[in-house]
């Protein structure tokens, strides 16, 4: 982030001192584009397009020079935090370093310029890469089959739930409910609804884990399955996972693994070995693909052998005899297609690159250092920001700003003040089961020095809360804008620019 834009940004037509919108830089007649003339012997446009389909005037896109376009987006980018700028300890988001080598790989013309419906014979390298990635992800999760179609975790969730539904229906077993812990991500219940199921919440116990007795009470023959994030969003490993799995299975249900936190156990323990039947992964988390300001992601969905026949079609297969990779569309039991094509292939190339860079030892190191960093940071700030649940955490911990409430300080104030110290804040007010929650995930790619600095900043903020709380109320003071009015945004809805 640079604060140097100031007066440089003043161009005619923009409000004084405001950062301009690209539309406010527009001047009629300016252009950046360079495209060919038609240059073939064809009728004029009006002779080819009947009047009722014609657009009299093209849309009001901005008219700007390429130089202005470059400065506008360069300056916009400078108004944004990123992993490449500094630490980004958003809990549950696994904002780790995204290796540059993966960008180079995804940009290779032999991947980036492939048409998705090209004949399989012409894309053998891409299919081999996908095949190898699929095999490795199955091995890492302890599953037997996988689809790379889901574009993100939530699409993987829906895919998994539809497979759950297909499995029960194939058994003539109409079930209506799916159990979700109260600490789960919001996508879980939303995906359950979209799959046509009813979400049933099971509470966490005093350990922050699934309350096993409460689970037994809601577990019956109407339950299609249980969705579980393990470790959960409190950063805690579900210690009862084996008896949970047994209970769900003996009630005829399936166990769904939400892979949002897989980065903390990769190479250490596998969902399949814990008893899970269905697993989605978020490749932008565990496998270090860039998250692009909110996307793209990639949410592959893996299953045990007995569920493989339900996977979305087409399925990637290797013909040993012909030594040829290809898509098998003849899948009578498939739940159907879930993506326009083959999923976020470009992201999968990056994940493959990452995986090949790390190898088995590197993957385990990821889990170890992610957990080490989280516990180390937690220990350094424990006096200022206590954690509700004792013991060792996994890749993240949920601290509470509750002790600061008596000074009139909320978790959001701590978050905003942390910005002034040069760190992105943790996730705040999630999960809902912790009051004034600060959910912190340093990830394995932050150094000890960075974590020491982050801890110093958090501890100083706790002191400031007591001694000079206005520093927190007024924060941040180092950013281009300060505490935007979210209520006003919703009340006086402006979701697109219009010329005044």
């Amino acid at each position, binding site marked *: 982030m640079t604060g140097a834009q100031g007066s440089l940004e003043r161009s005619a037509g923009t409000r004084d001192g405001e950062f301009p919108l690209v539309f406010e830089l527009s001047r009629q007649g300016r252009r950046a584009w360079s*495209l060919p003339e038609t240059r073939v012997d064809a009728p004029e446009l009006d002779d080819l397009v009947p009047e009722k389909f014609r657009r009299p005037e093209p*849309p009001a896109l901005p008219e700007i020079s390429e130089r202005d376009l470059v400065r506008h987006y360069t300056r916009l980018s400078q108004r944004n935090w990123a992993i490449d700028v500094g630490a980004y300890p958003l809990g549950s988001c696994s904002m780790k370093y995204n290796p540059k080598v993966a960008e180079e790989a995804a940009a290779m013309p032999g991947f980036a310029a492939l048409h998705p419906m090209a004949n399989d014979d012409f894309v053998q390298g891409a299919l081999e890469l996908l095949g190898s990635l699929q095999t490795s992800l199955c091995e890492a999760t302890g599953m037997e089959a996988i689809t790379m179609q889901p574009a993100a975790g939530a699409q993987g969730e829906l895919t998994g739930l539809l497979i759950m539904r297909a499995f029960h229906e194939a058994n003539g077993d109409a079930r209506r409910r799916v159990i979700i812990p109260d600490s789960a991500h919001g996508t879980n219940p939303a995906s359950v609804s979209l799959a046509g199921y009813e979400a049933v919440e099971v509470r966490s116990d005093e350990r922050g884990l699934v309350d096993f007795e409460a689970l037994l009470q809601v577990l019956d023959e109407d339950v299609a399955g249980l969705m579980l994030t393990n470790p959960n969003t409190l950063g805690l490993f579900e210690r009862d996972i084996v008896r949970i799995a047994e209970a769900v299975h003996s009630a005829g249900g399936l166990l769904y693994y939400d892979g949002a936190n897989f980065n903390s156990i990769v190479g250490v323990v596998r969902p399949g070995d*814990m008893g899970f039947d269905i697993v989605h992964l978020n490749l932008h988390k565990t496998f270090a693909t860039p998250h692009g300001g*909110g996307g793209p992601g990639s949410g592959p969905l893996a299953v045990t052998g007995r569920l493989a026949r339900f996977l979305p079609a087409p399925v990637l297969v290797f013909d040993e005899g012909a030594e040829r990779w290809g898509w098998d569309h003849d899948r009578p039991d498939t739940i159907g297609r879930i993506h326009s094509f083959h999923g976020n292939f470009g992201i999968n190339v990056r994940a493959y690159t990452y995986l090949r860079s790390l190898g088995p030892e590197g993957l385990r190191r990821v889990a170890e250092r992610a957990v080490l960093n989280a516990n180390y940071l937690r*220990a350094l700030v424990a006096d200022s920001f206590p954690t509700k649940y004792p013991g060792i955490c996994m890749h993240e911990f949920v601290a509470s700003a509750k002790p600061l409430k008596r000074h009139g300080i909320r978790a959001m104030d701590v978050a905003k003040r942390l910005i002034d110290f040069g760190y992105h804040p943790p996730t705040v007010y999630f999960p809902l089961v912790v009051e004034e929650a600060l959910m912190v995930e340093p990830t394995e790619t932050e150094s000890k020095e960075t974590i020491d600095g982050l801890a110093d900043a958090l501890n100083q903020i706790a002191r400031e809360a007591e001694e000079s709380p206005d520093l927190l109320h007024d924060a941040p003071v180092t950013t281009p804008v300060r505490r935007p009015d979210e209520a006003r945004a919703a009340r006086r809805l402006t979701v697109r620019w219009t010329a005044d």
Partner: protein
Amino acid sequence: MDFAPHTEDDDRSMLDTLGLEALDELFEAIDPSLRLTRPLDVPPALDEVELLDHLAQLAGRSRGPAGLVCFAGGGSYDHHLPPVVKALAARAEFATSYTPYQPELSQGVLQAIFEFQTLVCELYGMEVANASLYDGANALVEAVTLAMRTTGRSRVLVGGTIHPHYLQVLRTYTSGLGLDIEVTPFDESGVVDWARVDATDAAAVACAYPNFFGRLEDLAAASNVAHDAGALSIAVTDPTAMGVLAPAGALGADVAVGEGQALGNPMSYGGPYVGLFATKLDYVRQVPGRIAGETVDADGRRAYVLTLQAREQHIRRAKATSNVCTNQTLMAIFASVYLGWLGPQGLRRLGEVCIRRTAFAAKRLSEIPGCEIAFHGPHFKELVLRTPVDARSLERSVAERGFLAGPSLGRWWPELGDCLLVAVTERRSEEDIAGLAEAIEKELAE
């Protein structure tokens, strides 16, 4: 090579702080009987030199960019990718950021989304757009479920000329929701006769414009049929056509969706792409996914935030408008930079070149003995070539001759087994078109 910076001293000192002896103790919560006692059976680590060689070798085993002139279409297109687009949109400040939960640190992405929303509204003649969805198919699904919620109905009429994959995805997504999907037939000119469609009790009528065959559907008629029955009109529409074709909003569509890949994003074997979603303000509280809104900050400065979040899964959970969380923001920024590069006149030129070169290609390809244009009438950038042979094998053999056309249509419409889709973008020159025609001629002569 992993990317954790820890030295042995770091490990030791951090473990000491925790009062632990070994890293293994960090996993004490996991029952030892569950833990792996071996390394994962995945390929060994490669150093960066080996890794890039390996990847280049894999990439080299895909014959596409170098050896094939791309006339393939069907939802993914070989348009010009201006270098400035990637230079800006792929900047690490955009690429390596997360969802803009902290607006003070995310004004760049938030404003980029706000601008993207404006651009999509301008393209489609709509009032509100979201921050993107996964792809074109996903955008159609979200439009249909919006219509179901809005109307309280559970029947949808889908034009038979919509992308067959989008229809498949719609079926999959809604399989648990009790949606009755009815596909309307198309006539001998490759468009739906909307006046004959009965939309009684429908939540929505979905029309592809231009359609999968490149033909211009009468979207206004589809909208009328929808509105007469109290249904919403959904247009699945190609953004690259919006410089020359009347926008969906002007033709009565209530929701306009589309695939934004063609706006500056590489084909990349099918993803990451970007689903475009725009509608009218009346439906803004039913819109799926993220929306950036303008507001002011504590000092009265213009600022942007994520808004109307009560629609979304992290607040509303089981009752959210959609389960979408991660979207395709980075691809939306690619699209925004691309549209800024084009401007109104560039978009118009793009559309004009596509339409006129497609008309030229239609004329040239129909001169091939035994071949004809399957559907007559106005086209945008695709056409269907009827051949005297099985189009699937023709597609393959023409590709051997260096021209990638298709897809062949028999996989979805057996009666069109002799038909090949051909897409003509501004990158395809007169010589390319002649080359494709000659390749088909030679193949048919053999």
